[in-house]
């Protein structure tokens, strides 16, 4: 059973990691609430491939997923609705006693409906986003490949490396049309010294994202504008074809420490430095640089697992992320944007585990967020902060000897950034996973529903996900 649980871990990890291949997030999203059946491994905090757990057998996984989002409440350049279709196949291979290899290949199709003007997949993800004179539906599609290698170099010494590579194309199916080609690669490496009671390691990540855009309006002009932040835009020269290139590079580097002095208590702590540089330019017969922005930050997180042999276990966790941005216009070579953000949270989870295979949990977390955003081209400043909190519960139970049910329920209060035009969101989410054991493997049905309700509007954002997975026994 222990191996069974580990295998479920690996399944989630792979899914989580490849999902990031097209959009490199600033930080690894820690999974504090996952895998409550046992103490949390340091991998869930850092994503270091050296901390990945090796398996003694070969396996394959296959998964289909769809995700629909209805954005009745939306920002100016958000799509009205989105649809995601994804298929992926993962293979795990034990090369020898000391090394392990996994590979995942996937194919995505992501549709955005009724996108107003934005040439970007996510307009709000960059300070120098471009819009054109389009309104229509955009289709993004492409394959992604992820590989991971993990080796035990010496007694207690582990090394892991992971690479992601994705190529994505898009087409806005209207007149005029916008074409995007995105090539994205990311690499992680880690080195762990691991004993029974202590883990010390370093980890690093580098990613490179190159995106080419071309807006074409046959017979007439496409009117493009480059935003300098979220309020002021620079009017590009109207012409029948406009090309843009965005280059984004980032690194994350740090160290982590894990301890397990006794059998009941264990903990992990990680600290990382973050850095990102993003540059946007109009291309064509002459290159016209438009903007450059830099982000630097620090991310600290840790958890404490208290898992005695009895029925009750507990987990405490904390997370702190702080970063500062500045952006300069490459038209004026002057500072145009400054931004500072801070997120902190502290959480506690209580787990009831009547058996190795059945658990239930309840927990809460709270934290502070603070945003300080300034634009200089036309003076604008927004400072806001607030308390975010979340209540959650869930269970992992066997309905019969071959049918397993996992469910999670959460209610969350979120403080969004100013461009959402609301003071807060109240989010409700429910996740139901049903897994059936068959003679040839496991078939899983996954269902997830999230509703985000803004404080000042009756319209909501609704996200519905459905998945079908098969994994070998």
């Amino acid at each position: 059973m222990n191996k069974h649980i580990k295998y479920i871990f690996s399944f989630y990890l792979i899914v989580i990691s490849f999902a990031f291949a097209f959009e490199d997030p600033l930080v690894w999203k820690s999974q504090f609430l996952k895998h409550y059946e046992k103490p949390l491994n340091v991998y869930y905090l850092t994503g270091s491939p050296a901390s990945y757990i090796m398996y003694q057998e070969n396996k394959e996984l296959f998964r289909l997923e769809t995700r629909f989002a209805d954005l009745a409440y939306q920002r100016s350049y958000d799509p009205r609705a989105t649809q995601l279709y994804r298929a992926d196949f993962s293979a795990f291979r034990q090369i020898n006693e000391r090394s392990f290899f996994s590979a995942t290949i996937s194919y995505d199709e992501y549709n955005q409906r009724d996108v107003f003007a934005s040439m970007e997949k996510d307009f709000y993800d960059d300070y120098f986003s471009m819009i054109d004179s389009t309104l229509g539906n955009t289709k993004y599609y492409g394959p992604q490949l992820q590989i991971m290698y993990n080796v035990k170099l010496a007694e207690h010494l582990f090394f892991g490396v992971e690479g992601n590579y994705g190529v994505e194309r898009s087409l806005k199916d209207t007149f005029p049309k916008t074409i995007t080609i995105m090539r994205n690669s990311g690499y992680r490496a880690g080195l762990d010294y691991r004993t029974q009671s202590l883990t010390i390691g370093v980890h690093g990540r580098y990613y490179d994202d190159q995106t080419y855009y071309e807006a074409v309006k046959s017979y007439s002009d496409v009117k493009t504008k480059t935003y300098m932040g979220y309020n002021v835009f620079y009017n590009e020269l109207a012409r029948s074809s406009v090309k843009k290139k965005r280059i984004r590079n980032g690194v994350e580097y740090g160290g982590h420490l894990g301890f397990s002095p006794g059998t009941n208590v264990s903990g992990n702590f990680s600290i990382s430095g973050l850095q990102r540089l993003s540059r946007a330019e109009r291309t064509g017969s002459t290159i016209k640089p438009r903007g450059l922005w830099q982000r630097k930050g620090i991310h600290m997180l840790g958890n404490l697992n208290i898992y005695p042999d009895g029925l009750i276990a507990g987990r405490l966790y904390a997370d702190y992320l702080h970063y500062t941005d500045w952006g300069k216009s490459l038209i004026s070579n002057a500072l145009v944007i400054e931004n500072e953000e801070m997120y902190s949270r502290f959480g506690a989870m209580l787990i009831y585990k009547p058996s190795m295979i059945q658990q239930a949990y309840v927990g809460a977390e709270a934290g502070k967020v603070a945003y300080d955003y300034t634009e200089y081209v036309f003076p604008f400043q927004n400072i806001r902060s607030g308390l975010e909190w979340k209540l959650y519960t869930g269970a992992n139970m066997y309905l019969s000897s071959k049918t397993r049910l996992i469910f999670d329920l959460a209610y969350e209060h979120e403080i969004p950034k100013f461009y959402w035009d609301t003071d807060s969101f109240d989010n409700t989410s429910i996740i139901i996973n049903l897994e059936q054991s068959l003679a040839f493997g496991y078939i899983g049905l996954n269902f997830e529903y999230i509703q985000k309700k803004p404080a000042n509007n009756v319209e909501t954002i609704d996200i519905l996900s459905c998945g079908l997975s098969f994994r070998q026994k």
Partner: protein
Amino acid sequence: MMKIKKLYQILPFSLWLIMTSCFLSESKPEIVDGNLTINLRFTVLSEEDSTIVLPVADLPVKVYTNNYNIPPMFDITDDSGFVHFEHLPYAYYVVEAFTIIRPNEYEEIEVVGAKSLNLTVDSLGTDIAYTDTLLMEQSKSGLKINEIYTAGPPNNIQYFYDQFYELYNGMSETVYLDGMIFLRLTWTALFADTLSVTYIYQFPGQALTGREYPVEPGEFVVLAMNAFDHNLIGPLAGKTVDLSHADWEFYNNIEAAAYDNPNVPNITTNNGRVSQSSKVDFMVGLTGDALALCNGSDYDQMDGIDINTVVDCVEFSAISHHRKAVPYSIEASWAGIGMSKYAGQSLERIRPGFDTNSSGIDFIIINAPTPGYHHE
């Protein structure tokens, strides 16, 4: 031993990852955009003594940029003629000031102070203040090319045959179009004394002395490429202009099956007096070209048209780095920067007949053509 060796190979890699962060670092600029100040002083020559300049007080001044979506700024000069605009981004600006000066009870003088300012880092460097004195000039009154509509209506069938030009008589006297020529220009040396010509069309009548085709003071005259109601073309219905009542229509005598509205008099070419090799109608570049109205005393284009015969000239281009085509002596800049094709946009003077011989200042882009009248 082998394992230690592997470790030595891995450690430099880890260090490299950390070092990479240094290469991803850029220095934060010291200059902040949006901190620019424009200090302007408006002056006018004294009526009594033209060697003396006087400050213009209480003058409404407008400063705007087409680079950004920031609103135009307005202010009024103080007693010393000074006005200040603060917290501006680096950009190209247009300054406009207009007023009517009354030197005595029975006289009014229309004066303008206008200038295009290149206030980018390339021109200003690290300075955050720009100071200038603008001498206000009287707008040159006369027969002017007042509107140029060439960019086409909103459509995706490449339709631009609704082009027209509008003349305006800003004089206090009647002027006569007899024998005048209307030109499409090609590149001319910027200090030349003759103009190179692509198209040449001529009004009927005797140049200079003819009195058959008058234009009254304050009157608009519409010259249409094709004088019919272009809204009758299905996809253009409601999007373009009715030119069936234009005052004049261009007509090339050697164009096969050329459209000719019998109710509208023609401005002609290849008519026995002026000639051109082109067999097409008076079609010009949608968002870039140069036009001239000349008095017709020189109509032999083989050796160029004498620059002294020019009544008015306008150069326009949507491109800010456009290669200038017309000598500075008759046109100091060009209009239409940022104009779009097939969007129904038109170029018109900011006031009827407003002319400083710098079209970049005199003209603005309007969102719909206004044949025979001026925009609001």
